[in-house]
């Protein structure tokens, strides 16, 4: 295994594009090293991104949002007051990943590129309409977070392409987001179901919404029908029951050792309503 320490994304991309065998990009390493040890993925070329300037920074964008470097850890996100105020749902999703030890290393970009449908940080990013800046042999492009996973353990990124940053839009007024997951214990487990809701209010009514669901399909789902169920409503009982029904209808879960498909379809409806209520209150709406 060759270990590379590039100092620019273009250099990282060129190393990966020129490599003949298995390549992996290394940020926090909390998935890559586990796969390396288990023998499931043995890279011929391992490309450490932590020496590229800016990868550990959370910087405001010109549009009023945030640009999060690919080596920013979960602990770093949790310590950033501005980001926590704007996007608490994004931060709380990432903060559910692993122990304090894992939080010291694990990154949003790594959680996204690991391609798990149960990735706790991804539904919040999808609901927030986060985008990623991608560098590749053909130059830079920007993609929506929901378009990155191709299926379990796979992404749409071409050989030589890598994520250079995660970009959150401006929070704006009267907005709120939240992420909840179900696990059978209190901490440190993999989501059986996850649900993220991001919304904006006009008066007491939901004017904009995005709903993302985790662990109920091969990929994390953006569910426009669920968002439509609460648009124009004050998130009253009938809106919430329509939201739950839309989430359950969109879910295409499997049965595995963590939960049955039937259980997941039921719980996703419950969680999405609870997340919507929290997002609604964070947006400044009265408790529903």
């Amino acid at each position, binding site marked *: 295994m060759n270990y590379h320490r590039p100092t620019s994304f273009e250099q990282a991309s060129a190393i990966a594009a020129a490599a003949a065998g298995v390549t992996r990009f290394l940020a926090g390493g909390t998935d890559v090293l586990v796969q390396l040890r288990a023998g499931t993925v043995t890279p011929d070329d391992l490309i450490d991104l932590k020496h590229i300037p800016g990868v550990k920074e959370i910087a405001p964008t010109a549009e009023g949002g945030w640009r999060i470097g690919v080596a920013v850890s979960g602990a770093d996100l949790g310590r950033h007051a501005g980001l926590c105020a704007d996007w608490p749902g994004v931060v709380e999703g990432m903060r559910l990943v692993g*122990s304090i030890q894992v939080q010291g290393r694990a990154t949003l970009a790594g959680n996204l590129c690991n391609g798990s449908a149960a990735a706790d940080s991804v539904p919040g990013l999808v609901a927030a309409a986060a985008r990623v800046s991608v560098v590749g042999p053909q130059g830079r492009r920007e993609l929506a977070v929901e378009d990155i996973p191709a299926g379990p353990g796979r992404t749409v990124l071409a050989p030589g392409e890598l994520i250079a940053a995660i970009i959150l839009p401006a929070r704006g007024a009267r907005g709120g987001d939240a992420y909840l997951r179900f696990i059978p214990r209190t901490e440190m487990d993999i989501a059986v179901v996850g649900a993220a809701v991001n919304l904006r209010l006009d008066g007491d009514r939901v004017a904009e919404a995005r709903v993302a669901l985790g662990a109920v399909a091969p990929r994390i789902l953006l569910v426009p029908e669920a968002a439509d169920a609460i648009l124009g409503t004050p998130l009253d009982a009938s809106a919430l029951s329509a939201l739950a029904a839309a989430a359950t209808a969109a879910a295409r879960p499997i049965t595995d050792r963590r939960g049955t498909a039937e259980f997941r379809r039921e719980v996703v409806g419950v969680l999405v309503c609870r997340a919507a209520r929290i997002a609604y209150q964070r947006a400044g709406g009265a408790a529903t």
Partner: protein
Amino acid sequence: MTKTHVTATVNGDPVEFLADPRETLLDCLRDHLGLTGSKEGCGTGDCGACSVLLDDVLVCSCLVLGVEAQGARVETVEGMAQGGTLHPLQRKFIEHAALQCGFCTPGILVAAKALLDRNPDPTESEVRFGLAGNLCRCTGYDKIVRAVLDAAAEMRGAQ
């Protein structure tokens, strides 16, 4: 396989070693530097027996490559005692019998020290949360939590 020359600071001392890029920081600490206090329990970041501080951040050294430690400051359980004087956490673990086989203890001590550096007056819940990444399969956690709370009280009193 080409080995990489790594220089770092471990427990305040400058060190250098030759690392195969596949070796973890834990492998390098144990096999190249002879610091066998950090243990390998799971090797997958679940048990915390290999906990060390890397540039003041608590990490599982099994989830860090040795080559990633280039230029970094690493603190292990071997750095906790000052000469022959045990750290208060180490003394309280003995007083409270907060260990049985002792395999998880170095990682728990390092994690507990990191917790108290951040939060000198934790609640019991905060101690349990702070040590949730460290698994003990012998004693359960009650004596460990008591030892950490007692050490924290003593350390606050000493300041």
